[in-house]
């Protein structure tokens, strides 16, 4: 598979002559989505996107097509060459030459997951429907599996290939007034993992504990945030502050503050596409074929660095080099330049029970909903809602359910108020528009004085 695809790409590059880069994102995806304990959407999709970039001196043209036969590759290279001839000169510094070897990375392809079909997905969903029915609830959510192949070949000598499997299982058990939710977004091989029954049982139990939620007075509350809630915050930091473009125009919370403490010492945030923590799929190179490296944004609260692609590094000057974070090809949503896609918040050593035990009066938060981090990006000011499980914490124990609340909070301020982090992290996958796939691996955290506005 790898040799066949790469050989085809290299042949096309040789036939074309000149400075050429071919980048491929191929995917096979099976999805079954359900609600009210019935399937609402299902599908089996196979697609490929090929991007050709051609450089004529420092003029660069780019074109895309969704086919990998020889004729299609020749056509897309020819179109990119035509466009290059009309482009102005740029900071182009050459395509990746393959001289930097890929860093060691965790495996993330699993034959069993790649083979999951619609019948196998149905077999995993059926027990969830049954468990919900036994509890007088209905099931909503999604079961999905698939695989992604990345390949890059350049006339400068790069020859890269990688594949990973993806698996998600998301279950909301609900009765119309209360809901409980559990998800597994990590572990490429988790669709057949043994914790599936436990996940279903926990969603049902959470729904039972969510009935008759009580109102809450607005104010500051200590919060224990589960990993999916933490991930939403990290996602907005990735979008607004951790890419080179936001540093360049000064809108990043880190702009002009590299080396300064921005949060407390309990917060370390980094991008790592190599380690495969909690089973997040690895991707050892980006769409330009550049090897990815670990990039630390906040190290014990101190601002350190941001991600670059080849273009932003050339623009930044001063010896900046691509960190291997070019945006994925075919992406329509993340057009903001280089972007982290494997964001990790460093775990601590506490158990979740220990975090709860440290709260005298506060809230236990399962999820956030519709967070927006554009209010004031310099302060990393965000707003959002809670959903799918919010409980009062009283004297170190989780108590009764609370109605969903709006909050507005600075991420930097929250980072100063982190009391402890749990030792176990969980993955949240963001499958955004186009081909964007981002993974966020976060622990449960205890933050003092979260601002709820009602």
């Amino acid at each position, binding site marked *: 598979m790898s040799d066949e695809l790469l050989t085809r790409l290299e042949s096309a590059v040789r036939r074309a002559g000149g400075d050429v880069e071919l980048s491929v994102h191929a995917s096979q995806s*099976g*999805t*079954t989505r*359900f*609600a*009210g*304990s*019935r*399937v*609402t*959407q*299902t*599908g*089996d*999709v*196979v*697609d490929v*996107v090929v991007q050709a970039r051609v450089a004529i001196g420092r003029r660069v043209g780019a074109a*895309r*097509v*969704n086919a990998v036969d020889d004729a299609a590759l020749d056509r897309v290279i020819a*179109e990119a060459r035509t*466009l290059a001839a*009309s482009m*102005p000169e*740029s900071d182009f510094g050459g395509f990746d030459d393959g001289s930097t070897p890929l860093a060691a990375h965790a495996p993330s392809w699993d034959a069993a997951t790649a083979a999951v079909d*619609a*019948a196998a997905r*149905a077999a995993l*969903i*059926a027990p969830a*429907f049954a468990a919900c029915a036994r509890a007088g609830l209905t099931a*909503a*959510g999604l079961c999905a599996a698939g695989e992604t192949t990345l390949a890059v070949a350049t006339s400068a000598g790069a020859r890269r290939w990688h594949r990973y499997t993806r698996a998600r299982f998301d279950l*909301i058990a609900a009765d119309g007034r209360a809901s409980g939710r559990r998800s597994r977004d990590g572990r490429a091989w988790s669709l057949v993992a043994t914790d599936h029954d436990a996940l279903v049982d926990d969603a049902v139990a959470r729904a039972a504990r969510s009935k008759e939620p009580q109102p809450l007075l607005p104010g500051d509350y200590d919060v224990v945030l589960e990993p999916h809630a933490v991930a939403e915050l990290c996602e907005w930091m990735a979008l607004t502050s951790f890419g080179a473009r936001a540093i*360049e*125009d*000064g*809108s990043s919370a880190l702009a*002009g503050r590299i080396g300064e403490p921005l949060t407390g010492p309990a917060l370390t945030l980094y991008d790592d596409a190599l380690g495969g923590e909690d089973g997040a799929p690895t991707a050892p190179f980006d769409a330009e074929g550049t090897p990815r490296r670990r990039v630390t944004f906040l190290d014990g609260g101190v601002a350190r660095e941001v991600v670059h692609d080849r273009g932003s590094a050339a623009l930044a000057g001063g010896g900046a080099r691509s960190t291997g974070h070019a945006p994925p090809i075919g992406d*329509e*949503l993340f*057009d903001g330049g280089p972007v982290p896609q494997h964001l990790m918040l460093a775990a601590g050593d506490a158990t979740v029970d220990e975090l709860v035990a440290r709260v005298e009066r506060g809230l236990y938060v399962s999820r956030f*909903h*519709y967070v*927006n*981090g*554009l*209010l004031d*990006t*310099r302060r990393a*000011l965000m*707003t959002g*809602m809670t*959903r799918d499980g919010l409980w009062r914490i009283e004297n170190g124990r989780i108590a009764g359910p609370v109605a*969903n609340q*709006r909050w507005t909070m600075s991420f930097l301020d929250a980072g100063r108020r982190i009391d402890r982090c749990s030792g176990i992290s969980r993955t949240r996958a963001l*499958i*955004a*528009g186009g081909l964007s796939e981002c993974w966020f691996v976060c622990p449960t955290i205890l933050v003092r004085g979260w601002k709820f506005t009602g």
Partner: protein
Amino acid sequence: MALLPDIVAQLRRRGASFADARHVRDEREALAVRDGRVERHFRAASAGFGVRVLVDGAWGFGARAGERDDAAALDAAAEAALATARAAASLGGPRVALADEEPQRGRYATPVGRDFFAVPLADKLALLVGVSDALRAAAGARARSASAHVGARRQDKLLATSDGTSVEQTLVHTGGGMKIVVGEGDAVAHRSYPMELDGGVAAGGWEVIERFDFLGHAPAIADEAVALLTAPPCPAGETTVILDTTQLALQIHESCGHPTESDRAFGDEVSLAGASFLTPDRLGRFRYGSRHVNLTADATTPGALGSFGWDDEGVPARKTPLVARGQFVGYLTSRETAARLGLPRSGGCLRAEAWNRFPIIRMINVSLEPDPRGPSLEELVADTDDGVVMGNNKSWSIDDLRLNFQFGCEIAWEVKRGKRTRIVKNPLYGGTTPRFWQACDAVGGPDAFRMWGLLSCGKGDPMQLMAVGHGCPPARFRGIRVGSE
């Protein structure tokens, strides 16, 4: 075209009670310039088949890449659709039924003045570099970055259904925008035109871009951005809010468009974007807004992003009232949800982002109708003793029932005794949807009506981005909570 009717007939013979097959060829071009340099440019083409079937009352879907004569790709998509439907049917649940629709035949094409794709790249670059330079020049030393972009998308779509529909359409969307970021010391501010995110987008060709006159608006946008650097924060409290059309369009999108999606009302979208407070038991019985509030869904509006000939299951473009004199009266529907609601016909809102996505209920053009004798924006201001005018969305957040919202704008002006006074920065307003719309005491007139387009309405899982339209005049709302954080 012959392949598609043949395959849906074949699927019927193989046990599908309904089948539809689409072929979509999608072409895009995007060009962005930042500080005089090309930041992003590509041309992209994608073609493939999407096949949907109903087997034993359950949906299945398969999609494969290929040009319209690629019979093998179409067959593979059809096989995948059958396999996924049979698996879905094995899980049981209520059988899907479809509202009736007359078989459709014909062709529709977006009227285009000048084809964006045929405009020389040099002309596009000249415009964007000129805009970038003009923004920087106007902002002076405080300019941090000046950017401008244009883009277009053309979709050639074929659709055949097993109940006799066979239609063809070409949809073309074109647009662009610009943004200036300024800074002084630690302060940063920005302004965009005509809207943040996608800019100004409409159905049509290069003439859409020319209408926005980016160069002519660059100095004012840059001046406002610089003014925001030293502006005071929007004061907190309850006051009268006037929303201009650039913000009201998003308010309509989030607090009317999404909650009137009937799949959300049935809970089908709960696992991603959420559900809706507008549950079916409230249809025709719920006071959504004041008597000034009339909202419609209309896919027949000329030049709007949510306009087409037929939706992706062959329902012709229609107009449906959603809110009439403040009363909730209608949903955005598909043939499936129309049947669930007991309606005779679908509202024609089933659409897919591309050939490789399962079609779902999407907004079309969801608009606030003007008051036939309503005021202009400045007449609204003149009629307001104390309040704030907000424009251009900057942040958006709303809960999973579409009730509790908070929106932020790029800029606001305080209003005192009928006049705009100072600019204030980081304006936010919030509330709950019915209370907000019930607080509407004035809607602008037909001359103040503007149709806006959003390209990136996200919904579904896997996520689909959809182009939708929102028209509105400015409107005024009393007793709204505002502030800057």
